[in-house]
């Protein structure tokens, strides 16, 4: 699948605090997204090489993540460094978690499943404020149709209809008056999609009331997605707009 090779948003930057981890999925593959205490983000297969438990259940210590089950610790490169049951052994290099490309920009954390890392699209915003990650039933095409059918109203001024335009195969920009939102589209699976929504604009203009304005829009969009029949869209990611 070619689109595996793109950069995909997997979380809002603000959702993964330093020294925390979370599980997510991309094309139904389970991933752990974690941030070390130095604030760097890491995206790995969510599977401990020991017994296959989820690393996202584990906890971060410094620049290591520890598996919850038997405490094996992995460094930022995915290499196992410490096995509590055998504190004195030198851990064989083969005990290594599968790692993926990780990057951070536009207020989101991005994953590339590889094998080759594509170039990261250039930045779309100098300053962003989080709105929310919205989890929706259905594939990415349906989510994009919903966005197109339920555009937000502007926060700062009354304006004509919102415009939605693709920035990359997985990132869309919505303009409503002088406001701009960035929407990262994550294919969790063929039947579940996450929209990662940020405001592209200064905190001074949007913090608090502006975020709430677009949160209400996002929640209403989800409400419509769950109550109103939407045309089932066969279109793939990136072709729907």
């Amino acid at each position: 699948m070619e689109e595996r090779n793109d950069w995909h948003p997997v979380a809002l930057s603000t959702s993964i605090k330093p020294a925390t981890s979370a599980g997510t999925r991309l094309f139904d593959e389970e991933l752990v997204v974690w941030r070390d205490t130095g604030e760097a983000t890491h995206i790995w297969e969510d599977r401990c090489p020991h017994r296959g438990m989820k690393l996202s259940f584990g906890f971060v210590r410094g620049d290591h993540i520890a598996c919850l089950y038997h405490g094996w610790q992995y460094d930022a490169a995915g290499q196992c460094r410490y096995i509590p049951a055998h504190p004195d052994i030198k851990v064989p290099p083969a005990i290594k978690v599968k790692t993926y490309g990780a990057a951070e920009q536009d207020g989101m954390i991005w994953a590339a499943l590889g094998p080759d890392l594509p170039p990261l699209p250039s930045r779309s915003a100098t300053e962003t404020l989080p709105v929310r990650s919205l989890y929706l039933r259905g594939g990415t095409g349906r989510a994009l149709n919903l966005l197109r059918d339920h555009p937000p109203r502007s926060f700062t001024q009354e304006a004509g209809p919102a415009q939605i335009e693709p920035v990359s195969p997985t990132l869309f920009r919505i303009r409503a008056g002088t406001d701009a939102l960035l929407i990262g589209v994550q294919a969790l699976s063929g039947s579940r999609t996450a929209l990662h929504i940020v405001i592209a604009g200064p905190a001074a203009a949007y913090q608090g009331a502006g975020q709430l304005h677009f949160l209400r829009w996002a929640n209403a969009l989800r409400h419509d997605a769950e109550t109103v029949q939407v045309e089932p869209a066969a279109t793939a990611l990136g072709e729907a707009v």
Partner: protein
Amino acid sequence: MPALALYNYELDDACYKVRLALSILSVEYEAIAVDAFPGKEQTKPPLLDLNPLGRLPILRDGDVVLHGAEAILAHLARAYDGSGKWLPAEAAAFASVMQWLQFAASDLSVAREAREQALFDAPGDGTALSTEAARMLRIMDDHMTARSFAGASWFAAPHATIADIALFPAFALSRDFGVDHDEYPALRNWARYVRQLPGFTTMPGIPDYH
């Protein structure tokens, strides 16, 4: 012997709410082990005299006997919290705590049912229960997302209250009934703050990060 006695079952999430509050407020108590599973001791006399509903937890504090975790939390806050913060007196914060306590005791009890179905084979349609529990957790996540825009980290006040204690177990134990934390970023963040409360304690199913 401490003045307080808690009729307790270690694996019960509602008993855990009370243990968590007692630990955070540093109140000494005696835990009286109840054979809730498989014995269902709480549904029979003599415990039925203490709570005719046949449920845990039950707290005895001198002459006061209380059942229902949320009522017990309110009692503990009023009786043992010198700071007055855990159940604030100010009207708006007090009402907000009450709103979330009620949510925890009623709407969110579906999470308890889902978990008991999954762990103890209690009656009910497991899938339907956990779907409904996930919907309740989403209401909590939506609330905390909006709270975060104002820089607030807690459900009902600028600081932690007994509402946070009453809501915590359903989220922390959700994997027991097959609901992962992936889709609740605001609750993940809130749970991290709960874990950092002085006196925080875990129960089986809630990992202790060592």
